[in-house]
């Protein structure tokens, strides 16, 4: 693999605040090392901006290893950039070539208002979980962990859904800015396990209700969400959500 430095032209969305107008601004970054991560490339740019006394580009990030779900930017029209199953923080510059023009924008959705530049407010996701994305057990008094056997297949499938990192790329990728994959992932995770069974109906009704009030779009089955999901949450999550929702709506019990 070559270690040659690359020259990249960036077009970055700059926006001072939630209601300020924003625009794409162009920056040239030379000396990009192909082994750099995408965010390290932005660090280098911010360092240059500092020297020029310009406002640094604000973007969210924390773990930089693809697990916290904090990083969130649309790179060349795709949430988290061109690599499949890869968050922006795990994207490396070797996925690009010298001379490339790269467009960087924030997640765009009414439910995720822009805070500044590439940073958005994803607290709507927390409110969705707060409305039902849990098993209501108090601490203490849980039965022995092995008292309730759970088949390996169910446990593994539950895990596939539980792997969601809450990044919001599904919303950013969905042409309707719908949060169905995120909500479906939680509903399917808990629905696969006996622990989640008791609250199954109220959970799905309440979570969907919150999802709607937060202003996310509806699902028209584009499938873009799953294709952009860094954790490859399957569309099956949405099927489960739809089924559970229909069943819960028509069932009488509380």
């Amino acid at each position, binding site marked *: 693999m070559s270690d040659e430095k690359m020259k990249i032209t960036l077009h970055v969305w700059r926006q001072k605040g939630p209601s300020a107008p924003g625009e794409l601004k162009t920056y040239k970054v030379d000396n990009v*090392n192909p082994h750099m991560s995408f965010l390290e490339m932005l660090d280098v740019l911010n360092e240059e901006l500092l020297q020029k006394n310009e406002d640094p580009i604000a973007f969210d990030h*924390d*773990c930089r*290893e693809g697990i916290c779900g904090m990083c969130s930017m649309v790179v060349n029209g795709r949430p988290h950039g061109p690599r499949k199953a890869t968050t922006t923080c795990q994207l490396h510059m070797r996925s690009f070539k010298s001379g490339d023009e790269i467009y960087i924008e924030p997640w765009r959705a009414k439910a995720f208002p822009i805070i500044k530049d590439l940073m958005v407010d994803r607290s709507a996701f*927390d409110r969705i979980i707060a409305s039902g994305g849990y098993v209501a057990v108090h601490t*203490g008094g849980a*039965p022995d*962990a*092995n008292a309730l056997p759970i088949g390996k297949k169910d446990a593994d499938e539950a*895990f596939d859904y539980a792997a969601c990192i809450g990044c919001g790329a599904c919303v950013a990728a969905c042409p309707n800015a719908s949060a169905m994959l995120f909500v479906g992932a939680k509903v399917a995770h808990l629905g696969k396990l006996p622990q989640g069974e008791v609250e199954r109906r109220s959970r799905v009704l309440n979570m969907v209700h919150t999802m709607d009030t937060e202003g996310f779009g509806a699902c028209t089955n584009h499938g873009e969400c799953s294709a952009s999901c860094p954790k490859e949450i399957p569309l099956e999550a949405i099927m489960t959500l739809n089924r559970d929702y229909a069943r819960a709506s028509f069932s009488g019990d509380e």
Partner: protein
Amino acid sequence: MELNARIPAGPISEKWDKHRFELKLVNPANKRKFKIIVVGSGLAGGSAAATLAELGYDVDCFCFQDSPRRAHSIAAQGGINAAKNYPNDGDSIYRLFYDTVKGGDYRAREANVYRLAQISNNIIDQCVAQGVPFAREYGGMLANRSFGGAQVSRTFYARGQTGQQLLLGAYSALERMIGAGKVKMHPRTEMLDLVLVDGHARGIVTRNLITGAIESWAADAVILATGGYGNVFYLSTNAMGSNVTASYRCYKRGAGFANPCFTQIHPTCIPVSGDYQSKLTLMSESLRNDGRVWVPKKAEDCRKRPREIPEEDRDYYLERKYPAFGNLVPRDVASRAAKEAVDSGRSVLAGSPAVYLDFGNAIRRDGEDAIRDRYGNLFDMYERISGENPYETPMRIYPAVHYTMGGLWVDYNLMSTIPGLHVLGEANFSDHGANRLGASALMQGLADGYFVIPYTIGHYLATAKQPKVSTDHAAFKAAEEAVKGRLKRLLSVGGDKSVDYFHRTLGVDILWEYCGMARNEAGLKKALQLIPELRERFWKEIRVPGSASELNIWLEKAGRVADFLEFAEILCLDALNREESCGGHFREEHQTADGEAKRDDHKFAYGAVWEYKGDNQAPALNKEQLSFEYVKLATRNYA
């Protein structure tokens, strides 16, 4: 400084039960009248905030990320220990206790560790009830594996994402309480000071990271669960935002800081690839089960392609030096051996240190599919980061800072030397001594949050009987002014160097160099001379643009680095003071003839607790003497 550990009397197995009975209770109807501040939403903070709210307390919880779910606990990979003995391989509470004290190289408090082992089983029950999808056997029972060289299989895991799943469990419990209006969550809010009234911790001062607003919060007790300070080394496996600020500010307000030099270096991380590097990524320890660690015998072979180096020219140094444990020696031993190999001029990466972790043998023996099945995720991650295919060419790895055993000193009730200030999780010093065993940090964080603090804080609240205070109190105003003054100072330096420059110099050029995997007196003295110089330059040459009343990423970082620059000094002081080698702390002067760590139990079987004495004044050293009644002091031996 009074260091009363408040260890209950009686046989070790009965201490916690007895203590729980003796703790005073808060009347259920009164609980809602008590406000508790929880700083941190990781495993420790998240579980504490949720549980306290369930009990009826009025909780305010803070974190600097945009959601409590993103606390750094999310990154833990390997697993969580518990003494369930499901595999029936001879585990027990006593054995877990014993292993943890021994693994910590006899620098932890026995009573705390025993309680931890007792509670470990409840944690697994609790998490399963929450819907945490632990790995299972075909029969539907929970699966266990042996981890970090343990002789029994006591580690519960959820693929390579155990921390994530446990945190999401705690997070869901926390969100439930937020939804019920019992917890008020303050994300993107950073604690910048602790407020004391009449000697008790009564609140905090925070900065809203979006608006820049400086705000005060008053409470009846404060819980700090702000994680470790590994980022003082600049490059570590910690998240970018991990910091020492919260703990350090408490230290400056009078909380003792214990054993700051006890830092853990993890042997299998992806090596540094250039000076733009912002963080290091851990590769799970489980890789050492099948991977063989080596470097070329001859330095001139290092630039050759690994497959071109014949077997006889390779130095499988762990297998050579430790024939019994081979590649599975404990973390500190493996890390030091890697450093030794690299220091002998045999790094396998141009321009930065690295050794090979080779799966060639395992692939030939078990087939590529079997290896893919076991480590597929990790191999993919390695490829994403390094751009190399580990099925074809050996991985390159090198140790990196990973965990900090040191932290604020706490008694058996997890209360610091400041009444009312309780410290949980990685932020305290309590259970791991000089070295943490794999899969025991998650256990400790959740034990503290779910099962210890809910009892002990009640006792504090029921007995402290402090009057209500509001944020109008002069102490809050004074703390706010101090915080504002500091931010203003950072903004007004107007130099030309970035925060990262200072952070990198401190971490990489000073701490990693002189207080890293191996330490010696001359180096530590050098570091203690360099740190104040760098700090002085920081306050003259730093450039922090923008203002304090807006989202300002440079300002956030600058505040954290300013604290690291002060804290690094106590870290080195502690390392200099501790004239022995134990656990993660290796003093070159104190080693056996064959290069193993040599403890000095006679002189150093104590927790070193540093007390702030004023700026530009040496901190005072206090000692909590440790006594070992149940675990026999012995020399660790892996040869």
